[in-house]
């Protein structure tokens, strides 16, 4: 009876009238009692217990068109929607390509310059063309989409709409009918032609046109024809019209890509390019229905509605995009027309013990819907994961200690708090490398002279990446011995793979050489004690970087300390990203920090970063250090076209040894990816190559619901306290007011 009495007293103070105690009790009861459900669930109540996976994204995708998308956050969506001919085996490591849209792995045939077939073991120099024959899996169907809708007479319903008719539709859901059709070889070929379309500006066109016969010529022809079509379109509709003319690419034959029959097509590639099959696992080579292009190209579709292929993909994969609000929420739903794929029956050693083969042979996907919510900040994302509202999460630096404890030997394990929640830790070394590059065009640190090489070697010893990884990456990484990260063919573990320029092998593990050895090398380079032996001037090196802000300051201070170990002054030149890139393109840097994520799991994709003809300053390629070594280049050319095997391994080992001695990069580190997953998520195996893994995941929605309910019971007493505090304050204020008026003798006027 105490609380109602207090409430009644406050109410009396407020109004001067008695308030029914029942009303106060009802209010209090609502706060103290209430229903049992959780209050902080960010999802609609109707979704509770449903077979839905909840995930997040940080940056909104720029485009979802498979001819244009090349970023990880774009592929996270479209890899679930589009079906390229090949994919990476979900479980096997090292990564292995398997058929996806293709019925089997492509068959390769070789031809000489005159078109004469060559045997499979023909010498590389004799091979002028490689021809890939791809058989498309019959029975694949596109997702339901208005582009395929037909009327009773079999005519397309929505492919010849005028601007007025288009104006009636705001979203795809407004179209009354949808349809589908089977995916054929023609759809795969159509997409390859799209790579040459000037409107799409495919990021791989410049690279792939060098290989696919006729693609470059098609690009030029399309550029001319499209410019004319645009001029005609603008003459008709005005320059301000946001629409664009549609060109039917079926009218543009491509010499190197031909349809053989309904389910077969061939791609002819210049010379020997074994890495081409990796491109066939990317969305650039997924099928595109001509109807989809024609549908979105209709005038008015992109006029304020965003009805374009960039935002509404039309695929044949396990999922289709049904909600596209890149500012808040993207939703993938199971494509009802997807069938014919099952969970893999074999995996890597240990996968069975980890339960990753429990669903072997079952049809996929298991999950009906995947909801991606945009979370720009790491703190809300982390807290929602802990509350059970996200099924998996990465680990940001500021929450690392809360999630992971690192033992004396560097082994990572979950904290007790995480274990209590049933959270599991997944780690994998990324197929990436980060490095500090020397510009080979620089007169001090670059070039093939012994002095420059000794200077680079000395610095390679001094810059302690193990310390960097411990301080700035929470131990999430391994120091690089060369350009190749673990998991890529050619990487050698243990003593055989250690970088002898920088490390000694002691007690079964690499130990960084002493600073005395680095100083000795520095003296050999002509800079004893960090000073020019001739002039006595201190050695000053320059690091160009875009790192700014308080967080970067500690990293830059760390760099300075590393160089100061050898009495070398490091000047940091802060710049913005544009100027930074420009300086690298022009070869006007001395030292800079860069990274590389593999496109595909082949050593060529890392070794080419130091291939002479790829020099950025001379040829605009990916060799940002402008490293040139004729021996290395010759070995690269041989290695590039070889299949994986002992011979290739031997060449790669020689190349890596050459690089370790030349030290064009200070071999930085290969980051380790740590991610956390709740115990109601099954079949999750991290993969840096195949991003189409959603179809393999399975969840126990009932368990998730129970855990969420247990972890998120609302604590109601703060509301009661707040209410009482408000009432108390109001009562006090009123009383003080009345007293003041009484004291001043002006009450009741």
């Amino acid at each position: 009876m105490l609380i109602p009495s207090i409430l009644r007293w406050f109410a009396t103070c407020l109004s001067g009238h008695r308030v029914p105690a029942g009303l106060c009790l009802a209010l209090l009861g609502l706060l103290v009692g209430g229903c049992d459900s959780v209050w902080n669930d960010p999802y609609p109540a109707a979704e509770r217990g449903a077979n839905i996976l909840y995930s997040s994204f940080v940056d909104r995708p720029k485009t979802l068109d498979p001819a244009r998308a090349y970023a990880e956050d774009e592929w996270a969506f479209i890899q679930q929607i589009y079906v390229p001919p090949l994919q990476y085996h979900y479980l096997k490591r090292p990564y292995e390509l398997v058929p996806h849209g293709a019925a089997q792995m492509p068959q390769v045939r070789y031809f000489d310059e005159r078109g004469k077939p060559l045997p499979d073991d023909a010498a590389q120099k004799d091979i002028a063309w490689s021809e890939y024959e791809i058989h498309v899996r019959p029975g694949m169907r596109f997702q339901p989409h208005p582009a395929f809708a037909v009327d009773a007479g079999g005519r397309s319903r929505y492919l010849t709409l005028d601007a007025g008719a288009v104006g009636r539709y705001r979203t795809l859901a407004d179209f009354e009918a949808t349809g589908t059709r089977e995916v054929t070889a023609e759809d795969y070929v159509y997409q390859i032609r799209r790579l040459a379309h000037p409107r799409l500006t495919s990021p791989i066109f410049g690279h792939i046109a060098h290989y696919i016969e006729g693609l470059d010529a098609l690009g030029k022809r399309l550029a001319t024809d499209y410019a004319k079509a645009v001029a005609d379109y603008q003459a008709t509709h005005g320059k301000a019209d946001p629409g664009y003319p549609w060109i039917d690419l079926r009218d543009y034959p491509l010499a190197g890509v031909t349809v053989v029959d309904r389910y077969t097509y061939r791609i002819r590639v210049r010379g020997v390019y074994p890495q081409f099959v990796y491109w066939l696992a990317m969305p650039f080579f997924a099928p595109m229905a001509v109807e989809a292009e024609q549908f979105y190209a209709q005038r008015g579709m992109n006029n304020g509605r965003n009805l374009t292929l960039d935002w509404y993909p039309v695929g044949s994969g396990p999922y289709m995009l049904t909600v596209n609000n890149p500012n808040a929420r993207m939703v993938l739903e199971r494509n009802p027309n997807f069938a014919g794929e099952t969970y893999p029956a074999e995996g890597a050693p240990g996968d069975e013990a980890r339960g990753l083969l429990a669903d072997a042979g079952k049809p996929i996907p298991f999950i009906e819907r995947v909801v991606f919510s945009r979370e720009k900040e790491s703190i809300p994302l982390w807290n929602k994961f802990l509350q059970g509202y996200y099924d998996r999460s990465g680990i940001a630096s500021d929450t690392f200690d809360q999630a992971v404890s690192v033992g004396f030997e560097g082994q990572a394990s979950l904290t007790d708090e995480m274990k209590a929640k049933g959270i599991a830790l997944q780690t994998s070394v990324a197929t990436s490398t980060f490095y500090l590059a020397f510009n080979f065009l620089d007169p001090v640190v670059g070039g093939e002279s012994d002095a420059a090489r000794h200077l680079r070697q000395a610095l390679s010893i001094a810059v302690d990446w193990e310390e960097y990884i411990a301080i700035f990456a929470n131990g999430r990484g391994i120091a690089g011995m060369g350009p190749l990260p673990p998991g890529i063919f050619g990487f050698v573990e243990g003593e055989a793979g250690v970088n002898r320029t920088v490390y000694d092998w002691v007690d079964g593990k690499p130990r960084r050489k002493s600073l005395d050895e680095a100083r000795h090398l520095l003296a050999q380079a002509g800079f004893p004690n960090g000073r020019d032996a001739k002039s006595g001037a201190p050695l000053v090196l320059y690091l160009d970087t875009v790192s700014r802000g308080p967080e970067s300051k500690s990293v830059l201070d760390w760099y300075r300390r590393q160089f100061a170990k050898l009495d070398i002054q490091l000047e940091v030149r802060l710049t913005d990203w544009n100027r930074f890139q420009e300086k690298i393109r022009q070869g006007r840097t001395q030292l800079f920090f860069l990274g590389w994520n593999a496109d595909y799991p082949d050593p060529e994709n890392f070794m080419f970063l130091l291939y002479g003809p790829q020099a950025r300053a001379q040829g605009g390629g990916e060799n940002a250090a402008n490293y040139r070594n004729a021996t290395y280049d010759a070995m690269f050319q041989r290695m590039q076209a070889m299949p994986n095997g002992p011979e290739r391994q031997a060449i790669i080992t020689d190349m890596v040894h050459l690089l370790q001695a030349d030290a064009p990069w200070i071999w930085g580190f290969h980051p380790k990816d740590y991610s956390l997953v709740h115990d109601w998520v099954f079949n999750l195996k991290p993969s840096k190559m195949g991003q189409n893994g959603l179809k393999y995941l399975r969840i126990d929605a009932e368990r998730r619901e129970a855990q969420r309910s247990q972890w998120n019971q609302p604590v109601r007493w703060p509301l009661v306290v707040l209410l009482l505090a408000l009432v108390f304050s109001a009562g006090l204020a009123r009383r003080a007011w009345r007293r003041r008026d009484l004291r001043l003798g002006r009450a009741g006027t």
Partner: protein
Amino acid sequence: MTSYLLRRLVYALVILLAVNLLTFMLFFVVNTPDDMARMQLGSKRVTPEAIERWKQEKGYDKPRWHNPEAPGIEQFTRTIFFEKSVRLFLFEFGNDIDGRSIRGEILDRAGPSLALAVPVFLVGLALNVTFALAMALFRASVLDLWGVVVCIALMSISSLFYIISGQYLVSKAFALVPISGFSGGWDALRFLALPILVGVAAGIGSGTRFYRTLFLEEMGRDYVRTARAKGLPESAVMFRHVLRNALIPILTGVVAVIPTLFMGSLIAESFFGVPGLGSYTIDAIQSQDFSVVRSMVYLGSVLYIVGLVLTDISYTLVDPRVRFE
């Protein structure tokens, strides 16, 4: 009044033209069309031909200010500045660099921004004025002293602290509302309760102190003494006289802010997952999207000018001595 508004309209056009010019100059001092292309095409395998194609497709292949190769007036109209800027005056914003309609984005994002900003503004204003009145009423008392101390303490805390501690306490420890997210309809209340609470709390220190100063200044005037000498109750003195006369400086700050509420809040929207306009401009600057930057700067300028005109108009409503001249 009509002539005043017409005059302001003419001034506004000149200001908007200047803002447009300045935005264009500043943007292209930092970014070149080549930089924009590289940002969009990514850093891998980009060829000079791809950059040229991108610029051509997006209309950045022309000279910026003056096109000497074009005939006649087209020397100025066939330029990036003219083609990208002139349609702004008709509020035709075009598409962003990713091909999404800027008008559509603004309309989609304005609702969530307003849903957060308007309650924070109104509730904050009401509480600030109430607390300031109370402190002014009990000036030089213990309540006033501690009130000022609390206000200074509240002002000294970073808004980020309010957000993070609010999310920790209310959403995580007490599990009362979602930490972040947004939804349409009445369900939005669940998501907006915390950001509104945090927004109001973060502004209460500075707001209350500011209004308290205004009220104290008014309370020292002769007419207040006269009102008290007449024997008016303190409530009448405060609400009928002090509050009313303090409205002009309040309006100066408040009315000008109203249109800009539309532009949203950068930090709050980001942390609470509100898909508003707050981060639209920042995102555009980071992605070097000139179309969005110019549109948002233009819109911000228009709204600011509208706010100032509304402030002038509101003066005449609260103070009959003010006339348009």
